């Protein structure tokens, strides 16, 4: 079975660019699901088979840190890996994200090569 990815970002533009970067990086997914915030992401994870999540941090309704915290309490989805893609890459906030289960971080702006370098080994 192929892999599925969930892109979580309140910017539609950014979701399109991340999806394009995955293809340019040669990372082929069977399905690319999208969510505009943490709440929508939780709904998708409860319904769909997702292998990895790429999530922004600074979002309305439920931000990336709150999403990680809530996800960690739900047995059915808590082990799905989450990679942060954000302008927020300070040591403290990324440290908090990692303590809540994030497996790494990519700073915006990014290149397809950078996406491949960080995401490739996780697949």
């Amino acid at each position: 079975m192929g892999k599925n990815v969930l892109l979580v970002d309140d910017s539609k533009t950014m979701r399109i660019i991340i999806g394009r970067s995955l293809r340019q990086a040669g990372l082929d997914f069977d399905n690319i699901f999208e969510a505009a915030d943490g709440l929508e992401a939780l709904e998708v994870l409860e319904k769909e088979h997702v292998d990895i999540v790429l999530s922004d941090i600074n979002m309305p309704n439920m931000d990336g840190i709150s999403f990680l915290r809530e996800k960690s309490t739900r047995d059915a989805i808590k082990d799905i890996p989450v990679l942060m893609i954000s302008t927020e890459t300070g040591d403290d906030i990324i440290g908090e994200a990692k303590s809540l289960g994030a497996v790494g971080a990519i700073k915006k702006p990014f290149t397809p090569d950078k996406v491949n370098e960080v995401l490739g080994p996780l697949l």
Partner: protein
Amino acid sequence: MEIQEKMIESTKEIFSSMVMMDISVKQIMTNHGVLNDTITGMIGLAGTHKGVLAVHIPYDVAMAITGSFLMMDVTEINDDVHDAIGEVANMLGGNVKTILSEKGRDIDLSLPSTIAGAEYSFSSDKEVDKVIIEFDTGKGCFLVEMDLEK
């Protein structure tokens, strides 16, 4: 000024890696006056440094930037343009936060927002240190402005 140089570097990096446009600095300004047929993307900073980071982009340049961002023709100022310009401001705000912050927790960023109009002013009520940089995209110019409370 170090922060000015880093803003230039950050803006060029965003445009070369994400927007697929090579840009150059046209001039450093102290004031930009009234904005006409322009969209502004902005993000607020709060904490050890308080202020706003804004990009002011004339409509035709904003459509060219959005078209390059999304790899499609854009012929009107629509939701895609607002979203794309808001995201440019968001990425610039994140970079400015990295420049100004020690570890990232001493400055908070707002969510990005955009305004657009035929004629408007953009100014701060507070006394601020202002950095305004005009960039040339080859398809027109735009401004990056940072106002930090003194």
